[in-house]
């Protein structure tokens, strides 16, 4: 690892692990994070703490087509977090504890599966007129 490269903060065991669905999504996240660090940090903290809380920012998408998605063979609920006016994070909630009702089984000798938030896509929205002018 390069000397100045930032490290990923390890998630506490009571927190949700925040992951990008693939490398492309992680790059999109990093790009947006440079523009809106405070808003995305707030989003990160909220998703790590309580990704299934209903609020004016957090909503579960509905319907057979959009309400769920499949990731790594698991069907997960699809949620959205409104970061800014027009900017959104779409994420899957992968909870092997089934809302704390069961203890997930270890796979082999590894640790127990964690509760995960999979960022499926980020959408910064359209830049405001003033932001476009700034380039």
């Amino acid at each position, binding site marked *: 690892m390069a000397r100045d490269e*930032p*490290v*990923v*903060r390890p998630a506490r065991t009571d927190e949700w*692990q*925040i*992951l*990008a*669905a*693939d*490398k492309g*999504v*992680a790059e999109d*996240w*990093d790009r947006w*994070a*440079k523009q*809106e*660090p*405070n808003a*995305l*940090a707030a989003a*990160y*903290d909220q998703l790590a703490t309580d990704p299934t809380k*209903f*609020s*004016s920012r957090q*909503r*579960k*998408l*509905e*319907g*057979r*087509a*959009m*309400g769920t*998605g499949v*990731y*790594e063979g698991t069907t997960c609920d*699809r949620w*959205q977090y409104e970061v800014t006016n027009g900017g*959104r994070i*779409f994420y899957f909630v992968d909870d092997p504890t089934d809302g704390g009702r069961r203890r997930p089984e270890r796979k082999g000798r590894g640790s127990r599966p964690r509760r*995960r938030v*999979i*960022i*499926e*896509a980020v*959408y910064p929205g359209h830049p405001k007129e003033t932001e476009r002018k700034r380039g």
Partner: protein
Amino acid sequence: MPKTPRAAFGDLMVAVLGREGDPAREPSGEADEAAGAEGGFRSMRMIPPGGEFAPSTPTEMRDLVRVADQPMVCAGSSRGGRLAESELVMYVCSMAVVEHTLSYMLRNSGDVIAEAEHQDVVLRRRDGADLFLGLHSREESIRSALGVLARLLVAASLDPVTRDRVASALVASLPWTSFLPAEQQAEFFQTLTAKAAACVELDTFEPLARLIDGWRSTAEVYGVPELRTKLEVERHGPPVPIRRPETS
């Protein structure tokens, strides 16, 4: 500001029953006459809280619940008895609210409580969700009215003619549903009535408001092609840990 469950539900019932003077819902000929006779709704009149009609007794509620399969009787109406032209008098008006910051409330509690006697007060907070101050009796009357409306929605969904009319009128009354594909509009109405039935049983309407909010967000995805395209991409991983941005 997000809609309160009662405001969201008020919108919904306007969608289901039509608004007074709404040309899309006014009788316009023989077809409407027939639909009215079979339980379709002609119009809805809104009355503010404290107005001439507020369903409060089981009898009144039961009378309203039967509207989908019988000529309507509205015991609490000033006209009383059977209503001509299957007009439904309903209490869905959301009350004006006054807003203060929580710190203002803490400094001027007497004034704010005096205000709450007459209208609901929303207390804005920087560090958390807004609070709500109002009379318990007023809240209870609104909840019981919501219960009547939810039962009405369930009753309406049981009648095939009414259900089809409502489903086809959704776009006119809730314009955002126009972004949903046709089969999704049908699914929206189906889940809505099922959730309304569950909410009536539990006497809580927050899940219904959440469902409507969720469908509204889903409609937004369909309405913005870039969003929809992003969600149609299949992600095969592998998952990559992401960094929490450093805040300034």
